[in-house]
């Protein structure tokens, strides 16, 4: 290898006649690093989003919810909860009355929103979902003083306290102590629609729930489980048991066991919904996003690899006489091949390492909140750089080769694919509702070192593959023809 390195390094460093070869080397390096840097960055963001969401889900939500298949109410719920708590791996379980309700405010004539109402026992609920950690204000639903005061000020009967999702409260411009009206719709109303009488209950706002997850913050309200049972005429019954596990990843298997222990007779038919089930589409979409990113970035690196190949083809042409000379001195085809492969690999390696450094550097900047990019600018920048790169490549290298048409076609496909990607990427992110769900004041970043290693390997392999054809051509030249080449 020593001899090949000796020659290859000299060729790489020499800045002779055709200085545009080194310009193209630089462009290849930039291209490779761009691809590597963006993939590291985008994946770090996607990983960060996924991780952040998981953390928040796990902090806010029960790991398993046990309910009846028809969403009906359980009797004997205390016994069932006791049975569930005995299962291995279960940390805590809480009774919940989970319903939907239309709401409107005092002074409003029409229904303003339909939200989820969770009837909970705050103390028990804390052990399962850490409820009160996310509440600003009071969590004492039965605080008679507040209730009486609200009742007195508004001159109306008040059923109890309610904790509102922070964003919901903001949208409705509700403050602590304000009155919110719930339209209570009972099961039996469904059977005799003609007899529908709206039962309206007044609740006083006592606190605000803020989890930074839009589903909860904008569509959820909490009341006491006893109150819920009363207004829904289900005294002693509940319809959901929330369960916290030691290891959330075990939710699917433990869930099956929970079904068994909570089924007291044949008509119960309980079912479980794990946190993984609830968010499966989101996690699947994120996964898809990641795969798409890797493929697109691989294509970017591929474009750069074309540059490396072109650089090498030029170098081989320029060095034909040298190849002849080296062959007369007794260099083998293998020696010649290595000399040119080393050059391409050094370019690929430099690009890959620079790209890694760049990608990690930007990750660092983003996570320390030094810069806050608008995605549009970032994409525009990447597109511009890619287009620039393609133009330069076409102009300098491909003017006279046979490969031109094929390569042109490939560039077009890549270009269009990339533009499509740029169009689809932000849209799909929006569709995921990430920007909605995830109120970020900084981009979540999570660097997966295993993936960084993988992308380095991938990038380097692509560059290495790009060197094979030109190097093979060089090694395949017959010594005499190479010597006589003008």
């Amino acid at each position: 290898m020593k001899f090949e390195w000796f020659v290859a390094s000299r060729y790489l460093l020499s800045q002779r006649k055709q200085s545009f070869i080194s310009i193209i080397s630089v462009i290849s390096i930039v291209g490779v690093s761009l691809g590597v840097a963006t993939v590291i960055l985008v994946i770090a963001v996607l990983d960060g989003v996924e991780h952040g969401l998981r953390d928040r889900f796990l902090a806010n939500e029960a790991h398993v919810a046990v309910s009846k298949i028809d969403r009906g109410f359980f009797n004997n719920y205390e016994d069932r909860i006791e049975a569930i708590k005995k299962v291995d791996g279960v940390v805590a379980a809480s009774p919940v009355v989970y319903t939907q309700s239309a709401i409107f405010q005092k002074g409003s004539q029409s229904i303003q929103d339909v939200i989820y109402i969770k009837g909970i026992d705050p103390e028990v609920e804390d052990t399962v979902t850490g409820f009160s950690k996310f509440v600003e204000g009071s969590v004492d639903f039965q605080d008679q003083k507040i209730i009486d005061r609200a009742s007195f000020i508004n001159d109306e009967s008040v059923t109890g306290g309610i904790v509102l999702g922070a964003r919901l409260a903001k949208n409705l411009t509700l403050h602590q102590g304000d009155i919110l009206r719930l339209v209570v719709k009972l099961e039996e109303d469904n059977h005799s629609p003609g007899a529908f009488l709206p039962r309206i209950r007044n609740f006083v706002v006592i606190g605000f729930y803020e989890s930074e997850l839009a589903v909860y913050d904008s569509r959820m309200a909490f009341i006491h489980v006893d109150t819920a049972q009363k207004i829904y005429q289900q005294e002693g019954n509940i319809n959901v048991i929330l369960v916290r596990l030691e290891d959330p990843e075990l939710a699917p298997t433990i869930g099956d066991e929970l079904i068994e222990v909570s089924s007291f007779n044949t008509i119960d038919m309980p079912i479980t919904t794990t946190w993984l089930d609830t968010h499966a589409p989101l996690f699947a979409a994120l996964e898809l996003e990641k795969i798409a990113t890797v493929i697109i970035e691989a294509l970017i690196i591929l474009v750069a690899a074309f540059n490396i190949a072109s650089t090498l083809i030029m170098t081989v042409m320029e060095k034909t006489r040298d190849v002849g000379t080296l062959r007369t001195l007794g260099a083998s085809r293998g020696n010649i091949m290595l000399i040119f492969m080393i050059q391409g690999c050094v370019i690929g390696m430099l690009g890959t390492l620079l790209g890694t450094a760049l990608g990690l550097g930007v990750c660092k900047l983003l996570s320390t909140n030094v810069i806050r990019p608008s995605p549009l600018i970032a994409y525009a920048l990447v597109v511009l750089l890619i287009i620039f790169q393609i133009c330069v490549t076409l102009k300098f290298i491909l003017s006279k080769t046979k490969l031109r048409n094929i390569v042109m076609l490939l560039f077009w496909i890549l270009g269009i694919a990339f533009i499509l990607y740029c169009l689809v990427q932000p849209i799909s992110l929006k569709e995921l509702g990430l920007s909605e769900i995830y109120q970020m004041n900084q981009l979540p970043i999570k660097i997966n070192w295993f993936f960084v290693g993988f992308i380095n390997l991938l990038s380097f392999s692509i560059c290495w593959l790009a060197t094979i054809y030109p190097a093979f051509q060089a090694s395949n030249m017959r010594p005499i023809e190479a010597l006589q080449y003008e």
Partner: protein
Amino acid sequence: MENLIKVENESLIRVVNLEKSFFDGDSELKVLRGVDLEVDKSEILAIMGASGAGKSTLLHLIGTLDRPTSGTIYYEDEDITTYSERELTQFRNTSVGFVFQFHQLLPEFNALENVVMGKLISNRKSGYTDGRQLTRNEMYDRAETLLGSVGLSERLTHFPSQLSGGERQRVAIARALMNEPKVILADEPTGNIDDITSEVVFDILLRVNEELNQTIIIVTHDSRLSDQTNRTVNLVEGKISY
């Protein structure tokens, strides 16, 4: 550079009924039509002939840069035409030194590096230099000595572009000597330089032959050189005429 004991008339190269044709589609151009030639050890032989007679072609075949259409080339009774590609590559490295009309130095490397190059290639392949491996320093020392012996001790770190035509040819001669080859093949080494400079290059080649007992085959149009060689043969119509 140790002196070999010169053994009179010991044959180094024997070319037997060598034929070489070039094919262009269906047409065949017979360049060599049965060349018989014997070259003795320590001999300096001149090959002359009209332009296009096939002198370069013959030299390439002897130097294993190309394969003959038919016929055999023996080096010390070893038939090299049966060698594999790999064996030929090794053979070129260890046993043949070339000096061409156009110097063929590597432009990115200075004189010293150009001379040492052949050794850099071969030294890593243990077992087919003469047993011993040179250290890096020994290689460069040897190259320096060789450049000194062709009168270029002041030009070690000059690049080819900084050297005159004659100086480049002298570097090429030093390079050809680097691996102590069995034979040096020179194809019109002075074809591209003026008469006075040519004399210098000739002198060096003659001296190398004399002092190192280096076998040399030299293709030339210059009768001043061929007059001073041990022997001169003519290539006429694809055959050697004595």
